[in-house]
């Protein structure tokens, strides 16, 4: 096959770390998960992600890294296991607890 390889190098001067100073908007969270903003509203309703002002319209919401991580994981659970978002919320909480306990156990053994 005639497939060849080539390289391009690009310097990125800076990146933005998603943080208190640089949150992401609801539409960006939705886009990162490959879904629309109505799905994000469902996540907020079941408490998988928590914008600082949940009562305001979705366009005004903003989110942080933890929210993005949980949203991506919820999407995966929904897609691969067909779970509802309420069950996904419980799985995410349990997963978080397992990881916290494992880290604590590891710290004790050292």
């Amino acid at each position, binding site marked *: *096959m*005639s*497939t*060849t*390889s*080539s*390289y*391009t*190098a*690009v*310097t*990125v*001067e*800076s*990146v*933005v*770390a*998603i*943080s*208190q*100073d*640089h949150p*992401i908007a609801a539409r*960006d969270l939705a*886009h*990162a*998960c*490959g*879904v*629309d903003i109505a799905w994000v509203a469902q996540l907020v309703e079941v408490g998988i992600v928590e914008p600082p002002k949940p009562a305001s319209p979705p366009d005004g919401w903003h989110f942080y*890294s*933890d929210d*993005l*991580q949980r949203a*991506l994981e919820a*999407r*995966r659970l929904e*897609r*691969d*296991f*067909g779970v509802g978002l309420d069950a996904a919320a419980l799985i995410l909480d349990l*997963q978080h607890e*397992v*990881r916290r306990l494992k*880290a604590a156990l*590891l*710290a004790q053994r*050292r």
Partner: protein
Amino acid sequence: MEFKDYYATLGVARTATDDEVRKAYRKLARKYHPDVSKEADAQVRMRDINEANDVLRDKEKRAAYDALADRVARGGYAAGDGSFQPPPGWDEGFEFHRGAGGGGPADHADFSEFFSSVFGNSARRSATKQNYRARGEDHHAAIEISVEDALHGVQRDITLRALETDAQGQPTFVNHTLTVKIPAGVHPGQFVRLTGRGMPGHGGEPAGDLYLEVRIAPHPLYRVDGSDLYMTLPVTPTEAALGAQVQVPTPSGGVVEVTVPPNARSGLKLRLKERGLPGKPPGHLYLLLDIALPPADTEAARKAYEQLAQAAASFHPRRHLGVQGA
């Protein structure tokens, strides 16, 4: 690059129904989920299982994969070293819909070279055939840095591989190397965003973004929890019993003097405010006291322990067990 037998990965026959594929995937995903699996190669197996599932659960991708497998079985598309190369134009007539229909962004960044060469640019190719406007898909990848890098910031090169069509219409692997400046103070699980470094947009819409999830490599001294750092601080029994001023190196360099309070017990947690990872707010450095016993390997040391036992004769560490003495 090896040809991947996705049916073997999921342990299903090629004639398996969607339901059989789904059941096989779910069973294996539970067995090899890194949070619960006891298998040593859980992480690698999980990646392979996810990859096989991504292709076989999608009707269009599965049909294209089957066609490719047939052609490979007939023609043996092997490179000089015997490894697999996809034949040019193998996917003509197929369109893949990643994103909303396909279920959004899986961890494609973690998938194999085989997957990215076969399915990597499918969304882009199919999109050019259609006249619609949409922002490009976002890409997801992970980046592992050290605790020191998280403290001071770091510049890292990352390579993204994509199969593109060159001016002659031939498929070409293009390795895009991005030099990324990770700012100081990032913590595990935090995402950094590179605007416009995802898939190109369609119909004049902007490109997607690239999200890098930060992971922090294990460190011999520090454990990271969010922005906080934890370190074990060994002290002698004398220091723990009587209290002491001890010198402690800080992660950002330099040494601070720390007060160990009298009658400190093992496991006591001392907090050095805002000496963890920088940020808003900065994390703390926690010191976990670990009482290290001097060995009783000289006559003098043995005598000292015996004197201590006499001086603390009323001390019974096993009293709560209902027994006393030896």
